[in-house]
């Protein structure tokens, strides 16, 4: 059965696009067929994070306005079987699309793909309404910061108002060292405040910047601790029960570095 999942956050810059890309790649590498849809019309970036920016001919608005067929606009990711990107238009604005049109589009994609992941723009206006229109459920991305959690709370309310089921939470840019010295809200603090189930925690790691530089999502790197964190999120999205939490507490320390030098992948530290 196909599902449309919207990746949203309210606040910008917390990692929606990175999450959309990595979940999409991970689900495809696990054998599913996946369409990732960039709903951020006018500020497209999912193509860049996926490294597919040079292959765009048509975009989402072209499809909606009937200038091309849906299949012509879908870009196949040659690195991951079954993964396709539907890019956003860069020269249009969010009012070029209505929620009704988005719903029709994602419904059509659901006929072809196991998962349709919609990368939602920041904010709570038209772009958000478009992105959630066809969604069956939502994943909320936040970081352990007051501003991001506040906006996540607002978005959770809006997701409920849109009559979607209870969303799941990804906590991005988690820094174990800061958490352990009391300078960052921990998992329990955040879950207590937002009161929704956790999908996963993504460590703050330079791999993310390197992977964005190269246009190769961290999930492609077997040894990346961030990639492993996203792979586990994807397994949970796919309904695998009891996926253990990733222990990345050693990932940035001396021991973690030594382990990497000695040839153990960071992912090998993933013991619950």
């Amino acid at each position, binding site marked *: 059965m196909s599902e449309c999942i919207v990746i949203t956050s309210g606040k910008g810059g917390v990692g929606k696009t990175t999450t959309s890309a990595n979940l999409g790649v991970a689900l495809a590498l696990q054998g599913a067929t996946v369409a990732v849809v960039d709903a951020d019309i006018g500020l497209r970036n999912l193509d860049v994070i996926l490294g597919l920016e040079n292959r765009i001919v048509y975009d989402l608005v072209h499809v909606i306005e009937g200038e091309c067929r849906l299949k012509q606009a879908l870009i196949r990711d040659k690195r991951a079987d079954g993964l396709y990107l539907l890019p956003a238009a860069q020269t249009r604005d969010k009012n070029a699309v209505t929620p009704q049109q988005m719903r029709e589009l994602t419904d059509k994609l659901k006929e072809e793909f196991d998962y349709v992941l919609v990368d939602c723009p920041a904010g709570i206006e038209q772009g958000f309404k478009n992105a959630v229109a066809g969604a069956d459920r939502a994943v909320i991305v936040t970081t352990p910061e007051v501003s991001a959690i*506040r906006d996540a709370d607002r978005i959770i309310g809006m997701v409920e108002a849109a009559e979607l089921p209870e969303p799941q939470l990804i906590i991005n840019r988690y820094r174990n060292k800061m958490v352990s010295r009391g300078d960052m809200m921990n998992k329990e603090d955040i879950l207590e405040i937002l009161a929704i189930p956790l999908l996963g925690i993504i460590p703050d790691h330079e791999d993310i910047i390197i992977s964005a530089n190269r246009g190769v999502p961290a999930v492609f790197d077997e040894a990346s601790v961030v990639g492993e964190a996203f792979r586990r999120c994807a397994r949970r999205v796919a309904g695998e029960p009891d996926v253990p939490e990733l222990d990345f507490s050693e990932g940035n320390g001396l021991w973690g570095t030594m382990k990497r030098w000695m040839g153990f992948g960071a992912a090998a530290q993933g013991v619950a």
Partner: protein
Amino acid sequence: MNTLINKLFNRDNRTSKDDAKQRLKVLLIHDQVDLTPAQLDAMQDEITAVIQKYVEIDRDNSIVRLERGDDRIALISSVPVRRVIERALPA
């Protein structure tokens, strides 16, 4: 160990994440009830003033605030009463 160090060097023993969490809780209540911090303060003062008409209270140790529960916001108050003011209730 971290907690111990905090206790030794941090007089009020509050970490920055405690501040973050407290600020966040207040923010989310403001967002939800759509009252400004000034309006909330005024409400608290007025509630306290009404109580003071009937009993003498320990104002320094009084708490009157909104708190978020699982699915609702509640007015939480803890107001220590020193003594009942001995006078006839207003008609």
